C-alpha cells in the first residue's frame, strides 16, 4: 500500500506541470462548447448533461492514455528503468498507481465543463445525485487506470505507441457511448460497447446528472470496478511477461 501511495503522490506532483495535462485542461472547455452548441442550436436543453459528461470522459481517457504510453518510455530515457525494475516492489503497482493519479486529476475537467455550461451558455446543471456521481467518478478513474495498464505493457514492445494512442480515442468513444448512449448505435455496436467500462461509466454519470432516480447504482458501479479490475489483472500479467522477455533478451533499456 505504501508503494502504491508513494507512486500516486509522485505522479500527482509531476502531472499538473506536464503539457499533456495542460492540453486536456485547455481543450475540455472547447469540447464542451462544441457539444453544447449543437444541443442548444437544436433547442435540446435536455442534452446538457451529455455535454458535460463527454468532455470529462474524453479528457480523462486522453490523459490516461498519454501517461500509459509515457511511463516506461520516460523511465527508459532517464535511465531509471533498470533501478525501478530491480527493486523488490511490484512494478505493475507503480504503473497503475501513477496512471490512477493522472486519471483522478482528469476528474477536474468535469468542473471545467460544468462552469462552461453555466457561464458560457447559462445552463447551470443540477447534480441531483452527488453521492452516485462521486462514486461513479472514482470507480471510473480506477477502471481507466486498470484498463490503461494493459496498454502500458504493450507500449514497451511497440515502436509506434503514439499511433496506437491516437487510434484508441474516437473509435473507443464511439463504441462506448461516451457522447450518445449505446441505444442510439446499431445493436451489434451496442453489444460490443457493453464490454467496455466506459459505456457503464457514461450511462451512470449522465443518470447522476439527469434523472429523477438512478436505477441499480451499486450494481452498475460494481460493474465499472470489476471491468477495471479485470483490466488491471490482465495488465499486470502482460507486464510481468513483457519484463521477463526483455530481461531475457537484454533489451530492457532499448527504445
Amino acid at each position, binding site marked *: 500500500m505504501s508503494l502504491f501511495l508513494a507512486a500516486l503522490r509522485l505522479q500527482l506532483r509531476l502531472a499538473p506541470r506536464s503539457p499533456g495535462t495542460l492540453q486536456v485542461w*485547455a481543450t475540455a472547455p*472547447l469540447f464542451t462548447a462544441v457539444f453544447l452548441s*449543437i444541443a442548444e442550436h437544436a433547442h435540446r436543453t435536455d442534452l446538457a448533461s451529455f455535454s458535460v459528461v463527454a468532455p470529462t470522459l474524453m479528457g480523462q481517457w486522453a490523459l490516461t492514455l498519454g501517461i500509459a504510453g509515457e511511463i516506461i518510455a520516460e523511465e527508459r530515457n532517464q535511465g531509471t528503468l533498470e533501478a525501478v525494475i530491480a527493486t523488490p516492489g511490484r512494478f505493475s503497482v507503480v504503473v497503475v498507481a501513477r496512471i490512477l493519479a493522472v486519471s483522478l486529476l482528469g476528474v477536474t475537467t468535469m468542473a471545467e465543463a460544468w462552469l462552461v455550461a453555466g457561464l458560457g451558455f447559462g445552463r447551470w446543471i443540477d447534480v441531483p445525485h452527488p453521492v452516485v456521481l462521486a462514486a461513479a467518478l472514482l470507480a471510473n478513474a480506477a477502471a481507466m487506470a486498470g484498463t490503461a495498464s494493459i496498454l502500458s505493457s504493450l507500449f514497451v514492445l511497440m515502436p509506434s505507441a503514439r*499511433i496506437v494512442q491516437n487510434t484508441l480515442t474516437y473509435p473507443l468513444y464511439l463504441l462506448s457511448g461516451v457522447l450518445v448512449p449505446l441505444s442510439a448505435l446499431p445493436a451489434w455496436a451496442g453489444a460490443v460497447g457493453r464490454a467496455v467500462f466506459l459505456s457503464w461509466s457514461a450511462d451512470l454519470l449522465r443518470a447522476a446528472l439527469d434523472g429523477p432516480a438512478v436505477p441499480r447504482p451499486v450494481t452498475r458501479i460494481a460493474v465499472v470496478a470489476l471491468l477495471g479490475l479485470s483490466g488491471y489483472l490482465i495488465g499486470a500479467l502482460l507486464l510481468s511477461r513483457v519484463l521477463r522477455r526483455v530481461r531475457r533478451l537484454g533489451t530492457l533499456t532499448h527504445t
Partner: protein
Amino acid sequence: MYPTAFHLVRYGFLNAVADFKATYTWRSWSFGWLGRMLAQVLFFTGLGRVLDQPGAVRYLALGNALMTCVVDTMAVVATTSGERRAGTLSLLVASPADLMWVFAGRSLHWPLSGFATASAALFGLGPLFGVTWSAAQVAPVLLLIALTALGTYCVGLFLAVLVLNAPRLRNVVSNCAYLAMMAFCGVQVPVEFWPRGVGAAVQAVPLTHTLRALRAVSDGRPAAEVFGPVGAAVLTAGCWLLAAGVTLRWLVAVPARRAGTLDLSY
C-alpha cells in the same frame, strides 16, 4: 547561387515525405489514422441522430468530414517545432536561405494526408448521412478540400512560428486551434449561432469560407455562392502565410540570432 523558393519548398517536401514514411506505413495510416478520423466523423454526427432536428445529421456529417483535413493539417505545428528538438533549427536560422520556404515545404505531408482523409470521409461516409455527390460536383469538392488543407496549413505555419520558442506547447496550441475552428467556424452549428464578435473573428479563418462554399456546392446553389467564399479563403490563407513569414523573420529568427537564444535542444 542560393536556391530559389521553389527549390527550398521542394527540399522541404522531400523531408516531409521521409518524415511521413518514418511515421506511418500504408497499413497504419489506413487502419490506424484514417479509421480514427472516420470514427471522429461518426462520433460527432452521431449526436445529430438524437437531436430530432431535420437536416442536423447532414449538416454535422458535411462539417465534420471536412474538419478531418484540418485536424490532420494542424500537425504542422508539431513537426515545425520538431526542428528545434532535432537540433537543426539553429543551423536553419544560420543558413542564408529563407527559412520560411523551408518550413513551407517541411510539413506538406500533413495537408496531403488531410486531403486524403477528408476525401475518404466526404465520399465514403457522406452518403450514409445523406451527403451525396453527382459526377459534376466531384471536382469542385476535391478543390475545396485542397483549399481547406492549404489554407489551414498557412494558419498552422503561423502558429508553428509562434511556438518555436515554446515547443512544449506545440500540441496544446495545435489542439486548441483546431477545436476552436471546430466550434466556431460553422462545422457543428452555423457561425450566426455565436455572438457577433466571434462571427467576425472567424472570417479570418480559411475554413469558415471553404466550408460555406462546400455547403453551397452540396446544396447545388449558384456558382457565385461558391466563388465568393473561395476568394475569401484564398485571401485569408495568403494573409496567414504572410503573417507567418513576417513573424518568423522579425519576431523569431532575427532576435534569436542576435541574442543567441536558439538552443540546439529544448
